[in-house]
């Protein structure tokens, strides 16, 4: 493994809420690195700052302390070295699938017209949208919209792919299929991925490494190496070792949720 694609050192972020005297510590000295070609998932209870962390990495939010390095350069705003897959697909409703996949490249201005057309078609095929090139987002299902979202990000050829709960808004079945699809696509493109989710099974299924964030303040809590062999299939989710790992991670998140008051203590006999 060569140099990491993302190096965060002591990244901190505070938000001021209207009418409150003290700031909310969304992120408190978070340090994390994502290696070249690695697939890292960040999980944590709501309010742990995982999406804030991703937005800082994307350059969409400014951090108040520490440093964020992407592909060897200090990040100070969005860059052509990364691409974001959003939770909501955020497609231009007046553009077709083809136009939307091409859009990211048009803004990056790295490829000429012919290359853009060729790459657009290549990534549409890769995400399995062949035949839907001329449809508008309103004529696509939620899962298909997320495929466009993913193709748009991959087509710009980023050093690192930042994925913000991209399957959270999909129905349970589609979500499972999209996870398997994402692994297939990842195997073919070998991109570095930082993937934020609140679904533990999703994180364990996809990742090489799962990072758990704690909440109030949002911070690094623990990390788990996931060494299930690849290629993985959805049946892995029923493997006892998979379930055991999920249990470990869930234990930590439950602990955080209780500490933060998101979950109140169980009855005394259930827990010492």
């Amino acid at each position, binding site marked *: 493994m060569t140099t990491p694609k993302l190096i965060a050192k002591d990244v901190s972020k505070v938000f001021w809420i209207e009418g409150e005297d003290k700031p909310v510590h969304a992120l408190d000295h978070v340090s994390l690195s994502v290696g070249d070609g690695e697939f890292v998932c960040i999980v944590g209870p709501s309010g742990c700052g995982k999406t804030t962390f991703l937005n800082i990495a994307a350059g*969409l939010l400014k951090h108040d302390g520490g440093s964020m390095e992407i592909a060897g350069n200090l990040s100070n705003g*969005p*860059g*052509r070295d990364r691409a974001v897959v959003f939770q909501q697909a955020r497609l*231009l409703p007046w553009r077709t699938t083809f136009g939307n996949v091409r859009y990211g490249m048009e803004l990056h201005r790295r490829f000429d017209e012919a290359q853009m057309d060729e790459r657009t078609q290549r990534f549409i095929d890769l995400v399995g949208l062949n035949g839907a090139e001329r449809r508008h987002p309103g004529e696509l299902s939620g899962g298909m919209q997320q495929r466009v979202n993913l193709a748009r990000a991959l087509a710009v050829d980023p050093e690192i792919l930042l994925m913000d709960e991209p399957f959270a808004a999909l129905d349970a079945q589609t979500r499972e299929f999209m996870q398997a699809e994402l692994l297939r696509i990842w195997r073919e493109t070998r991109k570095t991925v930082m993937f934020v989710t609140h679904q533990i099974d999703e994180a364990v299924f996809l990742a090489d490494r799962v990072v758990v964030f704690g909440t109030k303040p949002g911070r690094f809590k623990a990390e788990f190496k996931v060494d299930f062999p690849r290629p993985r299939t959805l049946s892995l989710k029923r493997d006892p070792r998979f379930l055991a790992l999920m249990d470990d991670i869930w234990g930590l998140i439950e602990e955080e949720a209780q500490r933060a008051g998101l979950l109140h203590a169980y009855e005394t006999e259930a827990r010492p």
Partner: protein
Amino acid sequence: MTVQSLQAEPAAVAAQPVLVRPTKSFYKRNDSFMVGAASVIVFTAVWEALWAAGFINELFFSGPSAIFARLYSGLFTRGDMLEHVWFSAQNFLSGFLIATALGIPLGILLGWYRAPRLVLDPFITAFYSTPRIVFVPLIIMWFGLGLGSKVVIVFMSAFFPILLNVMAGVRTTDDQLLGAGRAFCATQWDLFRTIVLPSSVPFIIVGLRQGLAHGLIGVVVGEFFAGSSGIGYLIGEAANSFKTDLLFACVFIVAGVGIGVSALLQQIEQHFQRWRPANN
């Protein structure tokens, strides 16, 4: 027990699904136009019957055949309405085009940039909330009785609806899309060109349609007040001399222009909105 046994005999179901796109009848495809047209025809027929039967006093009202005859002679055989129509058309077109040419760019500018909006907002709100008609005497005082004052009145009437709608369109641009654009390193110009402008199109069209309606009011009102030509002047004259056929002929010309330009704008809007899934 098998699952199949729960199912009734499926023999009645066609062996092959039908793979032909279902077609709608001519009526179903054009029902709004056909019902609308029939409604207008019936209304006109009843009106004409009442008129022909002598139930309508021509001092106060008129009938379709008389109005049409007056319209025909005024525009074609006698041509006495032509100079008035031409005068009003000049007023309206100049005022409306100036309002469009200034309203759209200024609306975009004020929608996109906060500082100039804060500076101009009190004036825009004041002008928009005040009925423009109160300025008419002042404008006539400043610009005289001729073409100049009428153009200014139309401009004043049409400008603010256009400006405010365009501003609203720009300001309501989806933040999620702007965020996506920024994440892909879009410049301000990119954001404007690829997101703000396309998503503002419906607002721009609504602004133009409202500006059109207000502009038509402006042209008629301006000619009511002063001067000796134009459709507005002719309406006033016709009313003063109880020429109801002429009066209604003028009303129909104004209405016709309003409907025509409005339909044209709707066509333009539909051209830009082809991507929107059809719904009625």
